[in-house]
């Protein structure tokens, strides 16, 4: 089983001291990683076979660790993000976005438009709009209050974007902290868009592999994808650094800024290894998601 473990999702606890990882066998691994980094030993905190299906998404609220799993009855897959009004937005495998009130668990709204399953959702930090990306190749902007579609962009239709991956899916998005720029990653590589005008500003053709996950940090978009590397890209689309990782491809990247000390970056993907970067430019250590401790 250890040979075939794939870590789909990563998430930090609100206190910033724990790291949760969800894998394809429905297990959630919690690492007490701050202590672990101090000693360079992985302290394995707890393990639970929580669900029977793969855990595709993890996010944490102030009190809950929310797992996006495979709902066997409806056949959805979820990726979700939490906004400040305590509403959990889930992008599902049937191409809809559902908003749930976390306290009551009731469905607040649903947004219809995507033609295929949704890969990721982010909230626009300025306009509080919800942005979603999908297997159908489109990125759509939604008004949270109405709820209705505001705009749509389709990166795969732009000629300047490379089509090396095949297909048109967009698997990851990230916005910068001011809400000016957005990065889309997927089969079309990495492209950077101006949020207000929703126009393509730069494409990053140096990244030749499909992009699976993107985060924004300190003026750079940091991506992982179908190769052995973590890639740092500026808003202009220039690659500034590539750092090797132990898995290939990588499916998840997370930065922990809740710690008082330096932020910590971690990546995970097509193996049971989770790579930890204290300095963003070289790998510090790796954790293993395995029961054989």
């Amino acid at each position, binding site marked *: 089983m250890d*040979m*075939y473990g*794939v870590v789909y999702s990563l998430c930090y606890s609100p206190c910033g001291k724990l790291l949760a990882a969800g894998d394809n066998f429905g297990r959630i691994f919690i690492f007490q990683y701050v202590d672990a980094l101090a000693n360079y030993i992985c302290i394995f905190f707890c393990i639970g076979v929580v669900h029977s299906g793969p855990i595709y998404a993890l996010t944490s609220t102030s009190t809950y660790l929310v797992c996006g799993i495979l709902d066997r009855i409806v056949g959805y897959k979820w990726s979700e993000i939490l906004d400040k009004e305590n509403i959990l937005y889930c992008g599902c495998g049937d191409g809809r976005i559902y908003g749930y009130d976390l306290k009551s668990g009731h469905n607040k709204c649903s947004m219809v438009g995507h033609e*295929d*399953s949704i890969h990721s959702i982010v909230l626009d930090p300025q306009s509080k709009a919800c942005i979603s990306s999908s*297997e159908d190749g489109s990125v759509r902007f939604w008004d949270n209050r109405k709820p209705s579609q505001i705009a749509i962009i389709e990166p795969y239709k732009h000629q300047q974007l490379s089509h090396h991956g*095949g297909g048109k899916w967009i698997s990851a998005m990230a916005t910068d902290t001011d809400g000016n720029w957005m990065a889309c990653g997927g*089969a079309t590589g990495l492209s950077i868009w101006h949020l207000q005008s929703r126009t393509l500003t730069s494409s990053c053709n140096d990244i030749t592999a499909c992009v699976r996950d993107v985060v924004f940090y300190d003026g750079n978009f940091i991506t992982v994808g179908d190769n052995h590397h973590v890639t740092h890209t500026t808003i202009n689309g220039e690659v500034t650094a590539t750092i090797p990782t132990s898995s290939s491809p990588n499916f998840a990247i997370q930065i922990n800024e809740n710690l008082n000390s330096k932020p910590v970056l971690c990546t995970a993907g*097509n193996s049971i290894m989770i790579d930890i970067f204290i300095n963003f430019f070289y790998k510090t250590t790796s954790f293993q998601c395995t029961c054989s401790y």
Partner: protein
Amino acid sequence: MKRRKTIKGQQANKESSPASPSVKIKKSSDEVIKADNEARENKDDDELILQDLIDDPSVFIDKFNQHCEDIKRSMQTIKKVKLYSAENSTREVAKIKPQALMSILSLREINRISQMLCKNAKDSTQEAKQKCESVQLQLENLLYEIVHLKEEISKCGQFKSCGDDITLLEVEEFYRVAPENISLPERTRHDPHQLKLAQLQWELQEREKLAEKCRLAKEEKDRLIKRIEDKRKRIRNLNPLLDSVLTATRPLQDYLSLSISQVDSSSSARYLPRPLYFLFVQANAYQEANDSDIGVTITGDLHKAKQFDQNVVEESIRRASSSQSGQGNKKNLELKNLLTPHPLSVSLRLKESDGNSMALSVYYYPILNICAVKGVKIEVSFKLPDVSSVRQTIEDSSLLSCLFPGDTGKDTPNATNHQQLQSLGLPSFNQFVKEIGNPYIWAQSITGLQFFSLEKEELPMEPAGADLLPNVVNAILARTKSKASLLKQLIALENLQMFPTNSDGKLFPIHTYSQIKEFKVGTDVNIESIKKMSAILNKKLQSGNTTAVSIKFSYRRVKLYAVVLLEPDYPVHPPLTNITISSDQRELTANINADIKCIEAEINVFYQELLEYDSADFMLTNILKRLQVCFEICIESRLKELRDKPVTDLPQRMILQSCRGRDRVKPYKYLENPGCFTTRSTAL
């Protein structure tokens, strides 16, 4: 002051005497009362004077002297007056007299005071003396107590503790062994007394434990001795009974033409060595009892066996152990002796219900004192192709390897053999296995040989006894069946076809679109290519027990190369598969591609599903079938992705959801009922 008053009073009395009595008396009584009051008022003053006097006796003496002087002077004056002036002497005397009387009164007073003082002094002295005496007494008591305590201490000091005779653990050892709550290191580290106490405490606890253990062991021993005695008695009683049963059943045996009693009298069985005889009798009995298809024959040169003297064997054992400095020639002879089996052997032929049978011979090595299995052969009921690499799997000596977990038959179960070989300067037993056969542990058990193993006993059976042989026979039959079934599958695959199984149409769609291009078995498989791929496969290969099978699928210019490693006890342990997909000189493996990893996981992790409709014997075929389907799905979805327009030349499949999740897993699972493909919904 008092004195003044007294004088005043006297004066008053003196004055009042010549006056008229009635008034004067009244007046004097007033005076007296007044004086009394004054005296009472001034009692404190008296006390004070007294105190002064006590404080300063010199004043007292002065007063005394002064008054004495006064009296003396008064007396002399009176004397002078009486001598020299007789006429007015009375008047003069009367004049001086009160003064003298006053002084006398004062003297009396002083006398009284002195008496009082004297008494006071006596009292206080008495008091002080008493105090002193009590303190003295106390002191004496304390001194006595000190002496007593000193005696006690010296007694304690000389106390002979029996703890000195007890052998205790070394301090470091003690801290290592004893639990914290006894050793209390923070208290005992610096206090040797506490340390000693803790050590004694620990020793006591340990000894109590050991005593209890000893008692239990003794009880157990007594119980066992009693049981053994009982059993012996029963067996002794059984003998005549058995004899009578045998004689009684002889007519019945004759009638049923059974040969139970004849076995003993058969000529060659008499010359079998003891272990083989044990097996022979057991196998015959099993055959008689179960009416099963098991053939037992004795093979070998009977004439030689007659000459094979037990004494010779013992002789050579003795020589083998003492010939450490023998010449090379002698050593060779010893080795030859060592590896010579008993001339007779027992051959078994076991036939399972499908008509396939397994043949094997059991040899006994008297000097090594082990039994080994040789000449294992499987005979199948179907026709084997004349030239086929599949043949090597049935001639392999590993046919019966790992019949029970861990029983590889590559090392001797008799630990003394190592010593015997070492004395001949031969380090390992392994090199002779080919020559003498495989000394499986079960082969020792069914021949009644027992050895103590250094490791834990791994066979899940009784160490010896009648129900052991059935276990072994059943295991061999099951092995025969699965090997025969594997052979059928391999032959089909060698002809580039899949053997039909019950799972067709249930776990996999009936139609396949890819072709099998190549199939290899055993030594033909290109092992070098696997070695690079996976550390686990590599490790399994090096253990040397596995059989490798390789297959190549081809679908739309893409090739899939899979290597399946079959364990010797296949299908008890599922096979392990490694795949490589190559197209246009690009090779992808699970390490770098999530899709391939997912396919491998489908096969290697979720193999349990394959047992739903078929017995485990067909696992290899089912695995390859699933691999084929996954491969087709993978290629088709990739092609769909690469083309912008909908594709028409691909086979029509019902797919619920084209991909799912971060790694965009393809729908590898086939659902029989709607006949559609879906992504896996349960993890395990």
